């Protein structure tokens, strides 16, 4: 099944990718997730065209108005257009969520590869650090790191990465341990392939399946964490239209102007749900135990 030659591997990978996509079409929930995410991305890219108002422009005279023909979702406590702020907020939430997930994955995959491939002291060291990080409640550790670094979106991404990489490291290490014993790796090694070549061409691509699933699922989690930490005042600083912070700023006006909390809350919910749907779908598709069942249809 698995080709030793790289040419064959590409063909095989392409096939697998095609199959994943068609399976995605079959999986309704994942498809919905993907569609919502695509729409969100389009809205983020074309934000200036969708919104007619500057998300930062204050007009205290019309603060806390409900939705009307001029302001689709009403105005906030500074008379800014809530709709514009939410749309611009997509940019912030998506980029920070994706950056944070990719960074976390990068660190996790790198350390996992090192631990699994080289073994020995390297393995022991990395896995013990993983154990230490995992032994803390992750939210507490994130809060501490974000608190020490100071309130800033950048620092939150760093804090999330510093805590979240361990789950990738474990999964990747496990995959590497089994993959490196495979015959094609052995034969490539016998042909004189270097460590780096082996890692990049053979081992890494073969352990990416579960990694991509974890990452898709964790983008939703990252967006939620960033919004949560911003809600606590540790993330975005005013006047950034960050959803978590908007939610927090709306709390004192919950009775007079509930739209200030409802809309950002909905925005967070929809985005996180979309990523979770997609992640769940991908997991179903890539899970070998479920795979056989799914592929029976083809």
């Amino acid at each position: 099944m698995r080709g030793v030659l790289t040419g064959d591997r590409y063909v095989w990978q392409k096939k697998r990718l095609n199959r994943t996509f068609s399976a995605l079409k079959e999986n309704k929930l994942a498809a919905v997730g993907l569609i919502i995410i695509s729409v969100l991305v389009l809205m983020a890219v074309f934000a200036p065209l969708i919104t007619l108002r500057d998300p930062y422009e204050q007009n205290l005279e019309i603060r806390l108005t409900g939705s009307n023909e001029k302001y689709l979702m009403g105005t906030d406590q500074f008379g800014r257009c809530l709709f514009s702020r939410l749309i611009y907020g997509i940019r912030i939430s998506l980029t920070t969520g994706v950056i944070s997930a990719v960074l976390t994955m990068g660190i996790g995959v790198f350390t996992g590869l090192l631990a699994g491939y080289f073994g020995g002291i390297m393995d022991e060291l990395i896995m013990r650090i993983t154990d230490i990080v995992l032994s803390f409640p992750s939210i507490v550790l994130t809060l501490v790191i974000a608190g020490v670094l100071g309130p800033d979106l950048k620092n939150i991404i760093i804090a999330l990465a510093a805590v979240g990489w361990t789950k990738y490291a474990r999964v990747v290490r496990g995959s590497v341990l089994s993959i490196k014993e495979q015959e094609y790796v052995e034969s490539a090694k016998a042909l004189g392939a270097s460590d780096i070549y082996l890692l990049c061409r053979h081992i890494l691509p073969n352990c990416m399946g579960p990694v991509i699933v974890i990452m898709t699922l964790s983008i939703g989690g990252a967006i939620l964490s960033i919004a949560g930490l911003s809600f606590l005042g540790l993330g975005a600083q005013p006047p950034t239209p960050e959803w978590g912070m908007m939610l927090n700023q709306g709390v004192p006006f919950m009775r007079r102007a509930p739209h200030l909390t409802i809309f950002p809350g909905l925005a967070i919910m929809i985005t996180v749900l979309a990523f979770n749907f997609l992640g769940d779908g991908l997991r179903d598709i890539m899970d070998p135990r479920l795979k056989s069942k799914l592929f029976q249809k083809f």
Partner: protein
Amino acid sequence: MSRLTSGKNVLLLLLLVMCLLISGCGGNKVPQEKSAEGESPQEKIPQELVIGSPWTPKELDPVSAGWLVLRIGLVDTLVAIDYDINLVPGLAKSWEISSDELEWTFKLEEGVKFHDGTPLNAEAVKWSLERVMEKGTLFKDVPIKSIEARGDYTLTIVTEELFAPLAAILAKGEAAPVSKNSLDANGEFKEIIGTGPFMLSSWIPDQEAVLVRNDDYWGKIPTLDKVVYKGIPEAATRIMMLENKELDVAQILPADAVEQLEANPEIKVYTKPILRSRVIVLNMLREPFNDLRVRKAVNHAIDRESIVKHIMAGVDVAASGPFPPTTPWVNKNLQGYPYDLEKAKTLLAEAGWKDSDNSGIIKKDGKPFTVDLITYSTRAELPPMAEVIQDQLKKAGIQVNIQVLETGAAQSLREEGKFDMYLLARNLGFAPDPSYYLMSDFHSKNTGGKGWGAYGFNNKHVDELIELTQRTTNLQERKKYFAKLQEIIVDETPVMFLNHYVNVTAVRSNVQGYNEHPTESCFHLENIYIGE
């Protein structure tokens, strides 16, 4: 595997047992306190009051937390402040100054006892004040030569030179006498034993202090049996707890909430002008605020009226100087800085700040005008104020980065000079003599690091005038100096005065006798009772 889970179960069980034990311990206390209440037969309505304040009880040593222990009535001061901001007798029933104006003699109230039963006499007060001199900062600018007990109830404070605000400074909580038994054998503070109308029953640092009535109080004996003072930093939480009857008094609420609270028939709202101003301290030790023209420009670029009208629901008063118009020593001729964006831009251009590349942000020598504004969220209106100021200054081409921090973190950034603008609410009257406030906020020896006043402000004329006010007892002359000082300070503008504070406090409608003190020095809980 099964052993592991059984191990987990044991752990969980242990946790459960511990929880039960702890809650059991808490539960044991309640009936005891209940029975104590039963002993006062004349009251049918339980006389218990729960106060929610943004400030948590971190410490109870008067030397460092005098403001708190005086507010909640654990201690008394020699000199008290009445509701019209006059100095009135406290533990000292009278005081006089000698003809050479160097000796202050205080006649103490006789028969006053500390909470541990030891008598309050001149020796005890002398010991307490000397401890403040040694450990505290209250007397650092007071030229005290010696403190002497000349008789059982006669205390004399000798100063090196005439120091007019001495009595006013003794009204601060830091100077409140405590019993010697407040310290342990090593001289470390262990518990608060004062003379106040309430005694400490229990205390959870950073959360709450529980007080009980002092039945041997020398003054008016309180009606309340028990008071719980809780620190709840979030204003929205305090409001919710008040509405849920978890609090009887919710202090320092955003003016924005007045409308909602007044609509509730079970809640009474008090709005009271107090001696406090919201100000922005400018860092004069670095660019760009080391330039007077820039400081003036920023002043003109802020629309104070609009902030008061919209963020403070029109409750507060826009400021043109440090003191609110209700105080006797205000300089009424001050014009302040009216909102004038064009003037601000002209002044900035004069100082070399121009929008050379039409980016919307002004620059000088290629450097954009970007400043850090720090503030804290314990006073709920400060972060929104910061955001409005950010927007207003943007119109003048100034980019402001806001950092909303925890109070302590904001204060330490200030002390290290890592800020450009520091938005805070500053009390002016804990010691009801402007000399004290002006000294601690504007005298060059106090503007270098710690504190809440000007940062890096060094003006010889101001220093001299402040020292003069300390050496003058003639009221008219002092007023003249105060007026001149206000004029210079507003003109040099090391601190921008934005608006005068009107305190919003809401109480449940059965709480009677609540009266906010204009200096915030004391809640006067002895006047409060729970009615129908």
